[in-house]
């Protein structure tokens, strides 16, 4: 392997080159851009707004649950709120967030490409997302919809609320998801720089690639099932209606055929981020590159074989309960492989504690806890007690908030210098990350206990003996929200006042740090050599 002499260009070296943020500043140059980095920023704005919205709905839910009976709203409003919260968080924030923001920004750079394979499709994906979000929100806020994010029939097809337009809105959001996934798969296959073999790809790329496969293979099935629900709701075609010979359980099968793989759409990108963060701050190659890379594919494929574990008490056959139960145990192993490898990577590293790494520790604890409780609910006899209780709510928030949201925050801090060319305040970062973790812990740990004690989910009112745990949870949620607001605050300040970041402030070896911060329009002023691996920390840095 040769030691390349390519120097990462800097502004100082060539002031004529403008970065992507300043390549045209008109509104038009943003709204009609085909630059994946600008599209990424537009997605960042849109998904952050969704997160804010979903968070507000979550806080309203928490406030209502402060007292056993009515606190601030009636039951119908409550039911609409948790539906809004679930749908906004899942379909408008978590599924698109990391792929469309960080995947979009980094994937082409990490493979040494000028852009994604289909830039116009990329832009279209953004507008389709916006359209889907607009339809969904309009329908839910104007008409109201109260079927929960799971759309279970026959409640969803008979509920006197705007189920059909919401289903349509989510269908459109799904189209956007497919477009992005398709684009990334083709990009990864066709646009890798010369010399950049699969095994020299940053681990981030592997994980996003695995996510994209799920997006293309699973999302159409969700689309079809929601379309059927929408049509059924609008015209009473009754394909799942027992009065017309339909079988409601078939809807559940179709829904989970998508939605279990979808939970891996939500966590694989988080794992992508974590793999990069660990290696950079441990200053060392991953303990086993292949273990992390291949287990992403393992999750993507085996994840399709476990959907029935959501239906243990639905009246599904015993045969399916057994099969889906054991397959769930197998899919968990791939996550365990990753966890063990990350921890082993820290060993004998040269570790620098920064905000992203603090988020990594939070992720590690919360993801393992959440994942292990996933294994717990996959144990069929235990799920008889836990199904549809707050234990399940805690399980998935541990992974989706404790895991993915945490990783999203790690990513935001880790790539902030690359995306905006400035550093955030490490001190505020530490304060905020600890606040977020503490808030999280007190929000959701009590929910495990509530579930154990038997409190069902989607309960507007509850027996008074559950109250103090609920109050604790609401208190935790307030701390969590404060931490998030703090984050928004100091990041906004950093955007304008932050210290200028160099091309490679973290001393990483991965390819995105070979270009300037922020990168120029076509990512590299001249095509860098990618002879080296992305984790060659034993070689001197290229500056």
């Amino acid at each position, binding site marked *: 392997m040769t030691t390349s002499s390519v120097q990462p260009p800097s502004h100082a070296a060539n002031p004529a080159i403008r970065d992507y943020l300043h390549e045209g500043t008109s509104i038009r140059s943003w709204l009609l851009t085909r630059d994946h980095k600008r599209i990424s920023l537009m997605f960042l704005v849109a998904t952050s707004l969704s997160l804010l919205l979903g968070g507000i709905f979550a806080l309203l839910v928490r406030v209502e649950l402060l007292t056993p009976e009515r606190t601030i709203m009636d039951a119908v409003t409550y039911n609409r709120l948790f539906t809004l919260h679930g749908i906004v968080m899942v379909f408008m924030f978590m599924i698109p967030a990391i792929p469309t923001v960080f995947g979009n920004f980094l994937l082409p750079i990490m493979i040494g490409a000028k852009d994604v394979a289909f830039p116009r499709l990329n832009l279209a994906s953004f507008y389709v997302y916006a359209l889907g979000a607009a339809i969904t929100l309009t329908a839910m806020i104007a008409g109201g919809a109260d079927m929960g994010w799971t759309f279970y029939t026959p409640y969803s097809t008979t509920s006197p609320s705007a189920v059909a337009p919401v289903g349509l809105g989510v269908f459109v959001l799904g189209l956007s998801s497919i477009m992005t996934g398709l684009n990334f798969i083709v990009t990864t296959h066709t646009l890798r720089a010369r010399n950049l073999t699969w095994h020299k790809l940053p681990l981030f790329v592997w994980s996003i690639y695995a996510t994209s496969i799920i997006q293309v293979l699973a999302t159409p099935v969700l689309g079809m099932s929601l379309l059927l629900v929408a049509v059924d709701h609008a015209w009473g075609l009754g394909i799942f209606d027992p009065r017309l010979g339909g079988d409601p359980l078939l809807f559940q099968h179709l829904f989970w055929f998508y939605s279990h793989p979808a939970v891996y759409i939500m966590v694989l990108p988080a794992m992508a981020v974590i793999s990069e963060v660990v290696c950079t701050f441990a200053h060392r190659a991953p303990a086993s590159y292949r273990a992390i890379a291949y287990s992403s594919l393992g999750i993507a494929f085996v994840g399709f074989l476990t959907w029935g574990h959501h239906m243990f008490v639905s009246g599904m056959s015993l045969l399916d309960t057994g099969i889906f*139960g054991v397959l769930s145990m197998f899919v968990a192993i791939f996550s365990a492989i990753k966890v063990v490898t990350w*921890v082993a990577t820290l060993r004998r590293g040269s570790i620098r504690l920064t905000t992203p790494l603090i988020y990594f520790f939070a992720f590690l604890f919360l993801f393992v806890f959440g994942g292990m409780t996933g294994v717990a609910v996959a144990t069929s006899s235990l799920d008889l007690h836990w199904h549809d209780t707050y234990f399940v709510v805690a399980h998935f928030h541990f992974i989706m908030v404790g895991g993915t949201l945490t990783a999203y925050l790690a990513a935001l801090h880790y790539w902030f210098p690359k995306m905006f060319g400035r550093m955030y305040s490490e001190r505020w970062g530490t304060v905020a990350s600890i606040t977020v973790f503490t808030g999280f812990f007190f929000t959701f740990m009590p929910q495990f206990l*509530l579930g154990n004690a038997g409190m069902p989910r989607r309960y507007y009112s*509850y027996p008074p003996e559950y109250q103090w745990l609920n109050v604790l949870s609401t208190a935790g949620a307030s701390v969590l929200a404060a931490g998030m607001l703090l984050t928004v605050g100091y990041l906004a300040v950093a955007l304008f006042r932050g210290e200028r970041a160099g091309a490679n402030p973290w001393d990483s070896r991965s390819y995105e740090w070979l270009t300037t911060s922020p990168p120029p329009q076509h990512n590299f002023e001249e095509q860098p050599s990618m002879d080296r691996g992305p984790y060659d920390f034993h070689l*001197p840095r290229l500056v």
Partner: protein
Amino acid sequence: MNELLRRLLFLPPQGTSLAREVDYLHYSVVLSTMAGSAVVAATAMWFAVRYRRRSPTTAGESEVAEAAPRLSYGFELAAILGLLALFVGWWVVGFRQFVKLETPPLDALTIQVVAKQWMWTFAYPSGAASNAVLYVPASRAVKLVLTSRDVIHSFYVPAFRIKQDAVPGQSTSIWFEAEQPGTYPVYCAEYCGTDHSTMRAQVVVLPSEDFARRLERLPPLDIPAADGFGSGPLVRSRSDGTSLARLGEGVAARHGCLRCHTLDGTPHVGPTWARLYQSDVALEDGTSVRADESYLTESMMDPRVKVRRGFAAVMPTYQGVLDAAEVGALVELIRSLRDFREAPSTTPLAPAGAPSVIPLPRSPLPQLRSPGDSSP
């Protein structure tokens, strides 16, 4: 130890012996979860301290770690295989418990449970019924046969660690055997609309003498006279009093079931109901099936799905015609004929006794906006 852990984990009291068994697995899984995540996080943090970067200057090349991977694959493999063994072990134990929890003993007391928005109704073999309170005898296996009149609900007794969805148009079942007299809360665990959270009930476990006495004081199940024929007894009763089975006879007559089925073993157009329950019946396609509640319900709703060998597939569906409570009464009638012995005076039953003007029912148009009301 059991009691300590149970309280620490906020679990409700263990109302059945199976609940205790499930809780042991629960402890093992939850404690491993806590220990596992703590160990993983602690190890990572210890590494972060132990291997922290000593010099504040970044990227001192001398300090850079050596080349490529140094993970001991032996260790990783052992850890992963160990975890897999643990997980599969939990699956084995859990699935065996699951099968136990789903398979009621044959002599269990059977109670029909009908869910609707937003109330539970329980119908006992005696014909009595209660709303929102389920009375059961202590130390006796009780089997619940569930169905729903509108949307999916879920019957959940935290103290028994059991839960089962009630699905419209289908019949599901669950069972338990309460150890001690007492009162245990019941929740609806499947989201079913506005008042989902108040669709609660209680299981009242009584000593068996008290149970019998309590039942006597309950009113009979109120079956709506769905099609205007009234619910007067049209057939000579085969059991005494106003039992649920007897109500079932009324239903059978009213809906014309008895024009094809007999209650005493006499061959007719359709299979006789005598000695049918829990027998193995041969089907048209060469397979055979146990005539349990779900088969019986299915045969009313989708008669063409499992056709008895030797009978023509002529029965129409009763989906939307029979109310969920009526289905329960019919099933109870068939159950009561399980050990039917030839009675001395067997009168030919149908069609003489039944009104012959009932048209063959067909699926009526669904009432799309009012799921609460499924009877035409």
